[in-house]
């Protein structure tokens, strides 16, 4: 998730170290928020789908990638904004189609084959993307109208696109929350989440609801792809890079918990951002804890431990966090015991 931290280099160059600095903290809070919200846009859809259908959609991040590629292709002809509008719809329709013609068929075999199916789908989508667009990164860029500095904090400029990302994600969540809690459809969905059989008995078309939820969930992933593509890069590996983090996120949050997904997404966003921004060194930590550095260090079996820095391990911190959480809270932060 490196490219999100657009101003990383200049900040390091200005020589800000470990000293607490409110401005810098603010900058990183914004950066982490962007990452976290992006993660939540994926994990929210994934959680909705999981809690309703019991299926963990391994290909979820692939729909995110499709969102980025579709938006890129559309933006070539009719511009970024139409891409933002159309690409998620296309992705959502594709997702609904996958549910209708793929998952529903595999469903009869059980949850593990379902998971294997979505895994195969993820592989296939990556291959298809490579087939159509090739292996190289696409020149998908932020729209010109947003290529300016929104404001600066102590010399760190915050690009307008970042603010745009935050607003888009928050707007979508408010919309989602509204639909889920204030509309009739939302009520039915919520009921179907917990009592699918009862809802079906009441005459609602549960398979249609499932298909709709799957479509909306994947469309959400598509939106995430559209807005993240220009900053994180639009390339065939993008699904994989983000995908495993998203799965880790929902495990940390607790499978099936929307709040858990939100908290875990923001937590991961901030942890990775901060550990990249502040160069904490294991050497300092070990020295502080009273260990003496073995000399010569290059010959010691512990040399790797001593040379670890926080930016170096930033990307694996979510996994470490997951393992720790699973050991101490097997059901995740907000998971129900019987999930």
């Amino acid at each position, binding site marked *: 998730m490196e490219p999100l931290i657009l101003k990383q280099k200049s900040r390091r160059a200005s020589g800000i170290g470990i000293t607490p600095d409110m401005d810098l903290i603010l900058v990183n809070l914004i950066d982490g928020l962007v990452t976290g919200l992006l993660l939540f846009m994926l994990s929210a859809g994934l959680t909705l789908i999981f809690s309703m259908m019991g299926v963990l959609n391994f290909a979820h991040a692939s729909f995110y990638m499709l969102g980025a590629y579709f938006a890129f292709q559309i933006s070539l002809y009719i511009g970024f904004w139409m891409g933002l509008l159309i690409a998620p719809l296309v992705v959502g329709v594709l997702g609904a189609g996958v549910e209708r013609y793929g998952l529903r068929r595999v469903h009869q075999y059980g949850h593990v084959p379902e998971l294997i*199916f979505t895994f195969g789908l993820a592989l296939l989508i990556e291959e298809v993307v490579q087939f159509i667009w090739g292996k190289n990164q696409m020149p998908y860029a932020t729209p010109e109208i947003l290529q300016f500095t929104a404001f600066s904090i102590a010399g760190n400029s915050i690009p307008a696109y970042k603010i745009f990302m935050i607003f888009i994600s928050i707007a979508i969540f408010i919309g989602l929350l509204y639909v889920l809690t204030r509309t009739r459809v939302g009520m039915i969905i919520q009921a179907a989440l917990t009592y699918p059989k009862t809802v079906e008995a009441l005459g609602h078309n549960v398979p249609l609801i499932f298909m709709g939820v799957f479509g909306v969930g994947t469309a959400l992933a598509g939106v995430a792809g559209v807005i993240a593509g220009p900053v994180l890069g639009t390339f065939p590996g993008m699904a994989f890079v983000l995908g495993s983090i998203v799965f880790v996120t929902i495990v940390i949050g607790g499978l099936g918990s929307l709040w858990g997904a939100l908290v875990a997404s923001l937590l991961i966003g901030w942890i990775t951002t901060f550990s990249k921004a502040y160069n904490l060194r294991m050497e300092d930590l070990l020295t502080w804890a009273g260990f003496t550095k073995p000399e010569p260090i290059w010959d010691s079996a512990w040399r790797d431990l001593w040379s670890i820095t926080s930016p170096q391990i930033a990307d694996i911190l979510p996994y470490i966090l997951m393992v720790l959480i699973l050991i101490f809270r097997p059901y995740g932060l907000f998971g129900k015991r019987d999930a």
Partner: protein
Amino acid sequence: MTDQFTSDPSKPAQRMRAGSMVIPLVPWGIAAVLLMVLPFIFTANSAITIMNQMAITIIFALAYNMLLGQGGMLSFGHAVYAGVGGFACVHIMNMDDFFAGIPLPLLPIFGGLMGMGLATIVGSFSTRKAGTVFAMISLGVGELIAACSVIIVAFFGGEEGISGDRTYGMPFFGVEFLQQIEVYYLIAAWLLISAALMYLYSRTPLGRMANAVRDNPERAEFLGYSARWVRFFSFVASGFFAGVAGALFAVNYEILTEENLNTTQSGLILLATFLGGVGFFFGPILGAIVFTLVQTVLSLQTELWGFYLGIVFVVTVMFFPGGLAGLIMMHVPAMRLGKLGRLGIPYLKTLGAGAVGCLGAAALIEMTFHLRHASAGDHSMTLYWITFDSHTMLPWIVAIAVTLIGFGIVRATAPALAEAWNDANTPDGAPR
């Protein structure tokens, strides 16, 4: 394999039926002979390389199926156990004094123990639940360890990995494993031993309970077994054999890198195992053989092999969840009825036409790919040993015609095949 409980021989009525007692030795004998003579049939060095790769993949796939097929646990990070076993073995190869004291054929035991050790640690928290939770934990842990390979350089050697030399081991009856063929027999021997052990494991009380827990963990708990511990033991055993596979990889290639650990590798073994079929013991063996052939042979022919593999995999999951082994075992009832022969001609018609149609479709895909991605001005492409200009109409017309005709015949002959299938599976004289 001693028997703890013996019945009273004076009561013949209590003697068990012979069927469930005899472990079928014939297939194992055939396998052993086949492994012996294969290098005399395929003598080329490249063939031996492929066979080595195949044998290693078979062990790994069988180990993987201890989880997926027999235990119902879907792992997205099983390459880690093989990889770590392999890394440990390369380190042993590099410990001059120690390695000089052990013969190379014993090295896989260390790899196995390493894989088992790691599986014990990870399994202690990952096997609490099966299903989705287990799958996600396996993915996370797999990613974590793969990512560690660039951080813990002392063990994993960073991006370039670590390498060793197998020939520094203690000579084994004079053999120093300088030649590929010697390595082949080492791997083949381990293949036979590991496969037999894994097969026998599936016949032990723990192996049977693994199946029970897979099918109905709750019921198993009410029979006195902790589902968690049963899963844990399966996981540890699987880790051991994965480690053996990793060790053999180390012996064969003498180098291990991050690629041996990462999620791609884990995904590939899932692919191979599932394509072969998780429901039968021999499924992963078939899967590993076919998959290795596809990986080594098809990848030389086309850049798009991953694309085809993806399609085949998704189709398998959707329509043939039993994999290749399931497809084969589908024919057992017809065989018992002695009517398998009646399927021959209909199969030839439909599947032959289907194959032609697939080749046509593949040609279309290849040509589209060429049209889109070949460098500008490069119009000439070679397909099925024919070189032509991909920007002219003729090849397209031919490919489209072949595809349509092929699939057309499939459609036309499918009812006859279904008819023949019903016929072959109905005892003669029985009302249909």
